[in-house]
């Protein structure tokens, strides 16, 4: 039984998280791919609950930062303080020293603070007063942002967006799901608080190693390359997917294959993760954006245009 099956059994089958299977699958895949996640969704759609429940089950350390415009980079990374007793400067580590970091409303932080996350996300290390500190594996940033707020926010720059392995758009639940949530609201809250780790950190790291060794046939690489190149050729696209996007696609496809109990990647894996991997990396031409063309539609067009490997 792989890691996702365990998470599913604990959270989905027990109805602690309702209608969140796809999100959980993507988050787990990103974790096993050692990537970071940008979660976009209106307030109150269980973004934080999902991350918290996952961290608890995996026996990983979990911290949360609520971003505000006056938050400083040192508030995230950490800083040296003078200890009067010892007469030495002592390192006070910031919340980034964790396994899973939930950055709530990332677009409320100033660009300076946002960029402080860059090094940590890409290099898995931070530099404080010239000293480099490695972050403990696995390290995953789950940043959330509200798509409807326009005032007092600092939209993430493209360079930073590209550093997120996937973007998950969380929507509302169905009516039936909503009724279930209302009936079990108190139970769910208690259940999340009482969750115990069912997977150890070491097991997570083992799974990450297994995912790295998932087999990928050459034609799958060609298929991914064609998809990425096709995003650049699309008429509505100003800036298509980068080589980093191609790497993200193959990593996610591998993790997706593993979660689906396979040790090899098939084109379906690539298709399944294409949207979460590509949509936030595609910049549309304004004239098409005004017409209502979306990055999701561009990815759909691309997937219909690019032939799957044959024979």
């Amino acid at each position, binding site marked *: 039984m792989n890691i996702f099956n365990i998470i599913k059994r604990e959270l989905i089958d027990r109805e602690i998280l309702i209608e969140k299977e796809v999100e959980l699958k993507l988050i787990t895949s990103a974790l096993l791919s050692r990537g970071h996640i940008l979660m976009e969704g209106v307030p109150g759609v269980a973004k934080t609950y999902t991350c918290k429940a996952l961290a608890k089950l995996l026996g990983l350390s979990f911290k949360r930062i609520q971003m505000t415009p006056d938050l400083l980079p040192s508030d995230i990374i950490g800083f040296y303080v003078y200890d009067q007793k010892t007469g030495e400067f002592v390192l006070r580590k910031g919340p980034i020293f964790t396994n899973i970091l939930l950055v709530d409303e990332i677009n409320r932080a100033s660009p300076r603070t946002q960029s402080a996350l860059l090094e940590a996300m890409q290099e898995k290390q931070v530099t404080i007063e010239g000293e480099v500190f490695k972050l403990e594996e696995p390290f995953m940033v789950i940043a959330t942002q509200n798509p409807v707020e326009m005032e007092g926010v600092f939209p993430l720059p493209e360079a930073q967006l590209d550093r997120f392995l996937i973007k998950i758009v969380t929507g509302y639940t169905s009516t039936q799901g909503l009724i279930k949530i209302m009936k079990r609201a108190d139970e769910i809250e208690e259940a999340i608080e009482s969750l115990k780790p069912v997977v150890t950190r070491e097991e997570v790291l083992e799974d990450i190693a297994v995912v790295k060794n998932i*087999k990928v*046939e050459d034609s*799958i690489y060609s298929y991914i390359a064609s998809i990425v190149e096709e995003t650049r050729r699309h008429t509505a696209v100003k800036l298509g997917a980068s080589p980093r996007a191609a790497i993200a696609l193959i990593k996610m496809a591998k993790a997706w294959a593993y979660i689906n109990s*396979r*040790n*090899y*990647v*098939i*084109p*379906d894996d690539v*298709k399944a993760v294409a949207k979460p991997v590509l949509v936030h990396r595609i910049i549309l031409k304004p004239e098409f954006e005004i017409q209502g063309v979306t990055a999701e539609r561009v990815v759909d067009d691309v*997937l*219909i*245009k*690019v*032939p*799957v490997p*044959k*024979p």
Partner: protein
Amino acid sequence: MKLGSLYPAIAISILLLNFVIAVVSGEEDRHTPGFPQVTESSSTQLPIPINISDIEKAVSELYNRNLLSREEFEKLKNLNNLSLKEALSRISNDDVRNQLLNLYNKNMITSEDVEAFLNYLDTLKTSGVLDPIDELLALKALEILSNTIQNPYTSEIILRMFSVLKDLEVMRKGISIPEKFTPSSLASTGKPSPTLPQLFTPLLQLPTLPRLRFSLPNIPREVSVSIYIAFSIAIALIVGRKYLVSALNKLRIGLATGRTIQWINDVFLEAYWRSVYIVSTITGLRRYDWETHREFLEKVSNVLDSRVAEIFKDITYAYEEYRYGFKSSSGQRILGSFKKLVNYVKSYT
């Protein structure tokens, strides 16, 4: 050719057929709705005056040629100036006379009455109980009665009278009318055909009767043949589609299962792609280039027979393992399931 493409062919044939008919009939069928259609184009080409005095001339001609007896001639004498009373008194058929009297007793006769009476005369004539002289007199009486209404029957009545005279002439002389005998052919020559007796027959040059208002114009033979062929093909395709589909499917499956065609160098991969072809043929669902093997499996599974769907599922998963999972042992599984599929499909078809 995909069978699906037959439907557009049928549709095009039917559309073409309708178009041809519409074009051909539309040429002559333009008139204001709600108004009676005037006589067809030949009426403008052949402006022959219709006059009851011509009937008198024809009667005299027949009498001169001994085709009418003295008594008959007397009855028809001065036909132009006959009053209703005189006309009625000369009719020997009581039923006809009574019918006319009934019409006369109505304060105002209508077009329907006239038409009904003409139909009545036709019935009597067909039954052989109506004397031509009585018919002529009855038509004259009807003509007088119909003068009180505005209708297009006056000319028709006169034409009928000519028709009666012509029939009388043919009957008594034993003349047969040639098959390709048309008013226009005679009109073009300007004189009666030499094979006909020297009878003044304006009827032959007269325009089409108004009651033929629904008749189609002359359609060229080529157009008729084309329409017939197109229509026959369309009907044949519609009716025979089921059998044609079945036959083509058998042919395609036969080709796909044959051992002589080598599409791919790898026999296991080839078996998978042949099974895709077979399943695609059975279901009529095409596998698109952008579609993955699993997407295609899901698509056809909803349509396929559950047994075939199970076999094809096994082939697909074995293909996946062999192709992407580098599991060579799955190749044999593809072949095994492929054989099962072929056997099942052969027995099924």
